[in-house]
């Protein structure tokens, strides 16, 4: 629960809300170099890194770095499309996974989480735009 509290996306949530999220999530660990999600695969879960680091790769090119507190996997859950990129652990990494239906419940019930998600997605979009224009 403490780990959840320190994740920016969930910052500001009540203790009971954090407890509910913790109860609904699963912990997964990955070795260095291991692929957490693979481009083209069906997306079932939403991931939050609680320990370690990972990179986002598209066609073997690193496009972003993810650290403790970063989240990924939400896009496939939003549009029911396959995963858009690989996410590979660059060191031993621990993630919390929320299955699709629990993620959606969290989104529906909590405006703070929605705001956090939108903020992060806008940031990624902006970064993408900048990268394209450069």
């Amino acid at each position: 629960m403490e780990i959840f509290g320190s994740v920016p996306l969930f910052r500001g949530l009540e203790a009971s809300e954090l407890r509910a999220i913790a109860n609904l999530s699963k912990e997964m660990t990955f070795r260095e170099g291991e692929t957490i999600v693979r481009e083209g695969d069906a997306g079932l879960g939403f991931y939050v890194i609680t320990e370690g680091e990972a990179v986002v790769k598209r066609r073997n090119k690193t496009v972003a770095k993810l650290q403790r507190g970063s989240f990924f996997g939400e896009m496939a859950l939003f549009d029911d499309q396959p995963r858009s990129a690989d996410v590979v652990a660059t060191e031993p990494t621990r993630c919390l996974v929320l299955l699709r239906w629990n993620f959606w419940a969290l989104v529906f019930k909590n405006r703070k989480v929605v705001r956090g998600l939108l903020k992060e997605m806008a940031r990624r979009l902006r970064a993408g735009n900048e990268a394209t224009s450069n």
Partner: protein
Amino acid sequence: MAIESRDVSAIYEILYNPAYRPRASPSAHVEELTVDGQPSFVLMKEAEAEYYDIDAKTNTVWRLLDGKKTIQEIFNQAKKTDETLTEKEVKEIVVSLADEGIIESTEAKVRRSRVELASAFQLDIHILKDSSKSLAGLFRITRSLIRREELPIALAVAALGFVLFYSSFLHIFADPSVFQVAGSTVLGFFFFELLVMLPVYAVHELAHAAVCDYCGAKPREIGTGLYYLAPYFYCDTSDSWRLSRRARIMISLAGPLSTVTISALLVFWSYFVPAGTEQNILRVAAFFGYYGSLINFSPVIETDGYYILADILNIPNLRDEAFSYIKRTFRRAFGRPVPAVRQSARRVRIIAFYSAISVLWLAYFAYTTLWLVFIYGRDTYSAVLNLALTLGRVRAFDLTSVGVNVATISYFGLFMVGFVVMGIVASRNIRMRGVRLETIHDKRVSAFLPFPSSLQRSGSSDLAARAKKVAAANAHSYSVTVEPPLCVAALKLGRVDQSLEDMRGEMRRIEQSFRSLHREFILGHRGPDAFPTRKAMAENLIRLARQFPQAERRRAASAVSHFLRRQDSNLGNLLQSAFGTVWTLELSPGDYTRIKNRIFPSLIAEDIGTTDLPGELEEFKKQMVLGSDALAQLSSEIEEQSKEVYKKPEVYQATAYLEPMKSRLVFVGRTERVTGSVVWLGGLYLYQAWASYISTILDDAAIRLRSIRLSRATPLTKVQIAKLRDQELAVLSEDVERMEALTKTVEGAISKIESTYESAINFNDSLDSLVSDETFDIGLYKPIMSSNSRHLEGVRDKFENFRSEFERVSKRLDGLGPEVREELARRASGPKSLKGRFRGLLEAVRSSRLIGGSASRRTPAYDAEVKQMFATSRLVYGVVIASDIIL
């Protein structure tokens, strides 16, 4: 309902409801006959004139369908008569009877009107519904007229007539212009077939009926109609199944024999009239009689000749067997897999010979038909030409000529329409039978392999690696995702070039491959590693069992070991029950509307009887997961909903169908709209299995907890605790500590169950998103959703009940714990008298001499308390261990 005569809910009842008591239809009965010295059984449904030649096993089962016995009881009793019968066979027999509508609850009401359109090219007019009653007077006369000796006489007359007529027959056959009327062959055909031969055909059917009556069976319906626009008559003599083969052959022979005898008499008559129109009419009528009889003796069309041949060979389904033989031969020739069929060498030879004859006959039939079409077409062409010339005033107007031309064109037109309809129907049937590449644009499958969330990472990676192997063996394009508690293998099978039968085979094969790997994996991972609470629970129970009085200890230990074994088995079965697949068959809207009524009965209903779940899993799914009531309700809701779906193809662009025992969900239609969401549907199987199982055990546990209140065992009072010996108090203190620890574990489990429940509710809500807008609708999906909601609704109530009972029991412990600890503290700190010290020493000596002596010195109230805790703990532990399954 698309499933036509099948009553799926009845089949579900038979297969899945152990309490179902099938009752034989009162309108049907079995007659035991000795036909040709062999015992034979004919199941008769006289009201609908349906007769079934059944075997001894079916007869044994049929006699036990009294509406009082369950399938299991029927099996037990039937086994006494026939030791070789298996339970599966009994089910299959009852299913096949239900399939024919002869189980009372499934019996369809048949209302028949006098005129019925039997198919696109067959119109039936039922003249006499029961000729045995309507023509009773006539049959009294025919009974006295029919003699055995008449058969050779009739054969001789017919043969003589044909010998005399042979050259004329060939002449008319070669030159149909002989039967022209007003210069038109078409009209001539119409005139002879519909007018001249009418009484001959009537006599033909009456001959069948009269001989049927003579031999001791009841002739039923007599009627007429149009078959490919040609008139025909029929007489239902299916009651003759109760007679010997010889009698059946005689009945079948009577009709054509009467026709050829009349034809011979017409030939004889023609010799006594001067050459001219009258003689020509007699000879052409004789030609129609002989030629019609030749067609009637066709071995392929189910007419008299075919039935005679089938009876002579004693192969009732001769035609079906021959077609199946031809199909197998072709498949073998093209290197396709052929199912093994066990038949005697003699039978194979007969069927092979019959098949060859059938092919030749069909070729001949096609040739003569085309030839007739050519002759009639030529006439019609002349008629069109004449009519055009008349209309163009090139030729003078003649009313008779115009009438003949119009009649010729009309009749030929109708004739050709009949062939076109026949061709369309045949082509549609062929296309329905083999759903092929052009109709299935894309086929995908997602296999869901649930595993315990608490399993070590290496375990789930191992499962994924195995799933990848199976996926790679079945598809070029696939993905395998592991996100606890699910491993999802999504296979893209692409465009499909296979028949429906092959597709079913492929579905079974792929599902079976994943199911086997999952089963193997689960059976290897259901120990303490996968379920951490199981180990702690087991230790606690073993210690509790050891505290029983000496005499009862062995039984208690055995109860613990039985409980743990059952828990392991249940956990394995529960995870296997949550395995499932989702198939999507994408079709174009046109194809979907056209073939869906065929796809579902073929894909689903025919698979019901071949569940074949391994080991005890089938029983577990029926009893602990799905529940017979829920299955029956689901199937009846699907049946109800399907009426709407099939009526409104414009609304439903896709149809979903769930086969719950197999855990197979099939989407057919425009599945590209649902494909993206399909991957997470594994939750359906997961939560359905969990919700039903937890619901069952919560019930048991709550009842046991409630019984504590009713039991005579009262908690130890403060005074009783004070009277306990030191040794007893120490044991009690240890128990209390353990029970307090247990309470915490159960509270943890309750929290897990709450979370899983919330997750299940979240999943159920998410199902709505599968159909995201109003322009797209999936038929037969609502019953699945409502069934899931019902399951979850039940869990909530039962869970609340369990929790309140548990809290009530825990409160008792809340009071006991402090009192025990207070007494312990008092004894530890308080000064002891010499007497007291001596007693303590004596206790220590006693306990050191008695193995496990503490139990033998307990008060009865304490013993009762331990037993109660023991029994209750087992059930509560069941709940705790089950809570581990998902979270």
